[in-house]
């Protein structure tokens, strides 16, 4: 049966009406084979226009509709719904844009009309080749993957688990809690951080619907919002989490000693270790790179010492697959390595430390049991805090360093009442409601604030450290025992790999890029993928937790169990009778939607993963892949139509 095409040219009020001779086009196309009717309308997207379209489809018994109007991005969906309501498969409508592409690009009405006519002809020529497409939906996957077990990740896990969602928490280190677990006291409440987060850690570890993968990394993610498939690599721990009770009998006999990264290199640890006292889960891990056994030596010291037979050298990495509907990234941050800025003497001069190192010296679970000591074992009599280390080089203010340095100065004041304390700052950034008071307080406590505007240089000075500030002759020098640097906050080292796996973008500073700085600061541009806490930008604990809560809330409201998710209708289709299994397409798919059917020897497109981008269609050397709604015949017909 010949198709009955209805052609409708919208005037869009004066937008198209004044710039394109709509009626001339309508008259011109009326006689074309297959065109049952052609009409103009003042505003097709209006309620009246949509009713008109519906009555036309029904009254004229149309089998195809051509709409020439504005960009399909505006109202195509609306017009498609109207077709559907009139009983026409919505994919049998061909829309062409004569507003943005014709009316708005030239003041010359004749030229605009000529181009609009060409586009309408192209659409008419293509219309008979359109094929009905059935919309498909799948049930959403309401479970969630949280990457990073710091305060933000914990908050996200608990908020989601509270509502009964299954949560998978992946943490790269052997314990959860992130940086906060390693701080003695945190501002502005000066609470003991490990005590503050301990109940949350316990809850996360014990909650049935939270599955925790420590010492693990995300290896692959496929799919999209509502339907991700993720692969998690659980690295071999060589200690059974079930059998080990955390007695610590294995540490002592281990003959290996290496620098402990969890104490910022201030202490030594064994090749079998827990990061710090009280780390959760309280199960050691064998550091394969340093263990003698893994270097080929015959050592079983820890195995022999373990009373519970929990050590297993045969442990292997495991790759675990899980289905989730959303992914919350909370991989946190680290500090810039100040070695990159030699003027501060870090790494060369003794007693020049970072704020994180001072946190560990101050921590009761740290290397000195909470005593702040110099390299020579004595208490410092004077300390200089240097703010804004790397701010100029990084070109951003981390926003939290002033406050944590003020906090550390306060703690030092209490701990070392007689010590001279100096703060070298450029600008004081204490923006929150409690922070200004803390600044005022340490000033009252006799901490001397010196504006250095980033000109600080540290040199050795007869067993002490000379802190010079100021550039001109007025530059002064202060002599201290210890220098504490507050380096810029930067994203943790694994962010690049993770961004590559997820295909999420990062900003100029390397942090995950938010979808919108003001309206959606916790979401990435990828639907269903959120970035919260310091992996999105430097943040203190409160802000990180707030963002995590926001993302969790978004997931709870948008990803409801039992709801359906509409799949992309315009997917790629492989013709099995033509596919020779040459495998050209498999690696190309940006969504990893193509696999090989080993039995048939052909490629298969997973409709749930395909986004209809067409990469495989262009690459298929034997023309076996077709993109629905963009078949070769349709495109050729459109091109020929333009030339008519």
């Amino acid at each position: 049966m010949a198709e009955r095409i209805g052609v409708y040219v919208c005037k869009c009020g004066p937008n198209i009406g004044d710039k394109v001779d709509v009626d001339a086009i309508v008259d011109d196309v009326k006689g074309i084979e297959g065109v049952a009717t052609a009409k103009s309308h003042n505003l097709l997207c209006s309620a009246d226009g949509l009713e008109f379209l519906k009555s036309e489809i029904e009254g004229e018994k149309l089998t195809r509709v051509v709409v020439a109007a504005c960009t399909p991005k505006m109202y195509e969906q609306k017009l498609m719904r109207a077709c559907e309501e009139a009983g026409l498969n919505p994919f049998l409508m061909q829309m062409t844009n004569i507003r943005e592409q014709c009316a708005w690009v030239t003041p010359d009405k004749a030229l605009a009309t000529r181009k609009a006519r060409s586009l309408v002809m192209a659409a008419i020529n293509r219309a008979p080749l359109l094929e009905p497409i059935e919309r498909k939906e799948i049930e959403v996957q309401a479970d969630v993957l949280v990457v990073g077990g710091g305060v933000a990740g914990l908050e996200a896990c608990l908020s989601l688990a509270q509502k009964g969602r299954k949560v998978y928490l992946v943490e790269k280190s052997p314990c959860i809690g992130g940086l906060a677990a390693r701080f003695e006291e945190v501002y502005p409440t000066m609470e003991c951080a490990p005590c503050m987060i301990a109940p949350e850690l316990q809850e996360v570890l014990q909650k049935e619907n939270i599955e925790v993968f420590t010492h693990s990394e995300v290896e692959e993610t496929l799919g999209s919002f509502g339907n991700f498939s993720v692969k998690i690599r659980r690295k071999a721990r060589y200690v059974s989490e079930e059998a080990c009770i955390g007695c610590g009998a294995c540490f002592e006999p281990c003959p290996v000693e290496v620098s402990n990264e969890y104490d910022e290199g201030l202490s030594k640890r064994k090749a079998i270790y827990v990061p710090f006292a009280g780390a959760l889960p309280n199960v050691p891990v064998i550091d394969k790179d340093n263990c003698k056994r893994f270097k080929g030596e015959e050592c079983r010291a820890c195995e022999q010492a373990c009373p519970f037979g929990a050590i297993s050298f045969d442990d292997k990495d495991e790759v675990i697959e899980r289905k989730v509907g959303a992914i919350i990234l909370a991989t946190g941050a680290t500090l810039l390595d100040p070695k990159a800025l030699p003027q501060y003497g870090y790494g060369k001069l003794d007693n020049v430390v970072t704020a994180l190192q001072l946190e560990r010296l101050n921590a009761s679970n740290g290397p000195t049991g909470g005593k702040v000591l110099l390299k020579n074992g004595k208490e410092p009599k004077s300390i200089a805090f240097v703010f804004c280390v790397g701010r100029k080089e990084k070109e951003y203010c981390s926003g939290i360093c002033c406050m944590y340095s003020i906090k550390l100065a306060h703690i030092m004041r209490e701990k070392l009442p007689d010590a001279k304390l100096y703060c070298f700052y450029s600008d004081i950034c204490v923006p929150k409601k409690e922070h200004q008071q803390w600044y005022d307080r340490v000033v009252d406590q006799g901490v001397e604030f010196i504006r250095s505007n980033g000109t600080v240089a540290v040199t050795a000075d007869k067993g002490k450290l000379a802190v010079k500030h100021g550039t001109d002759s007025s530059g002064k020098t202060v002599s201290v025992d210890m220098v504490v640097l507050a380096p810029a906050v930067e994203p943790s080292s694994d962010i690049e790999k993770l961004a590559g796996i997820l295909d999420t973008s990062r900003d100029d500073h390397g942090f995950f890029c938010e979808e919108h700085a003001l309206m959606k600061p916790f979401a990435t541009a990828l639907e269903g993928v959120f970035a919260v806490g310091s992996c999105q930008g430097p943040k203190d604990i409160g802000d990180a937790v707030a963002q995590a809560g926001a993302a969790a809330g978004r997931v709870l409201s948008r990803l409801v169990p039992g709801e359906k998710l509409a799949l992309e209708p315009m997917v790629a289709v492989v013709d099995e009778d033509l596919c020779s299994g040459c495998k050209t397409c498999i690696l190309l798919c940006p969504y990893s939607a193509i696999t090989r059917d080993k039995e048939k020897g052909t490629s298969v497109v997973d409709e749930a993963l395909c986004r209809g981008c067409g990469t495989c269609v262009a690459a298929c050397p034997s023309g076996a892949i077709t993109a629905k709604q963009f078949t070769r015949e349709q495109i050729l017909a459109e091109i020929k139509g333009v030339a008519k």
Partner: protein
Amino acid sequence: MAKPKVAFYWCASCGGCEEAVVDLAEDLLKVVDAVDIVLWPVALDFKRKDVEAMKDGAIAVSFINGAVRTEEQEEMVKLLRKKSGLVVAFGSCAHIGGIPGLANFWDRETIFERVYKDVPSVRNPEGIYPQQKTKVDGVELTLPEFYDTVYTLDQVINVDYYLPGCAPPPDLIMNAVTAILEGKLPDKGSVLAPDKSLCDTCPRKDSKPEKLSIKAIRRPHEVIADPEKCFLEEGIICLGPATRSGCGERCINANMPCRGCFGPTKGVRDQGAKMVSAIASILGVEDEDKVTEEEVESLVKQIDDPAGLFYMYSLPASMLRRKRMG
């Protein structure tokens, strides 16, 4: 009942297609038994006037090989079309232009200059080129016109079926002859060979990596190809993925990559463009994010004579058809 009449004819071809008929071996006797050959210039002494004398449609089927590039060839194929019920384009040249089709990268003038003057074995200081009309001792001699462009058979006359290959393998020829004799032919316009590309039947198929990415291009003479590995995996461009199967993998079995003589697969118009698109897609794709523009360019530059390589057999049938005439 009279046996069906069959004609074989050759245009711009090498003679390999005639060999292919002889390659039917004992089967040739079956064919000769079943049909009445009324024209076969390479083997039998029938003339053009014999064909002209026949009634229109008297020949059941004409197998025409070779591309069309002269006036005489055009006249003959038009004559055969008129006298034949079916016309089968036999072999790559008639089907898609074949090797003679590469001449479409030049024109008559440059070809004549090369062939009749510049070739080292030719001495022609006066620059004498073939002429359509020449007077010799007062007598006018004529030659058919040599065209600027090489045409596929279906660009000159209607073609009912295509037997692809350089040359078509005996099994496909026998299948075609049997189908014609038994009247079990597919839709008009069909290529009488499988629809899938060569990878489907390639003996190296299973060794091909699941994820294919080419990091460097190598030409067949630069390496001794591993006889087990997919050529593309080794960086040797093989047109197999874009070429119809049915050839019996003759080149592959001789450890040479496919050059595309069977033409595109079903539904594809431009075999060369398809292969260019596929190669462009997989070239260095694994490190796509890290590759600089310059590196991409140097990778692409490794492909020597891309037009001649990707369109080795199919230039006249492609969307390019020929080099633009000046």
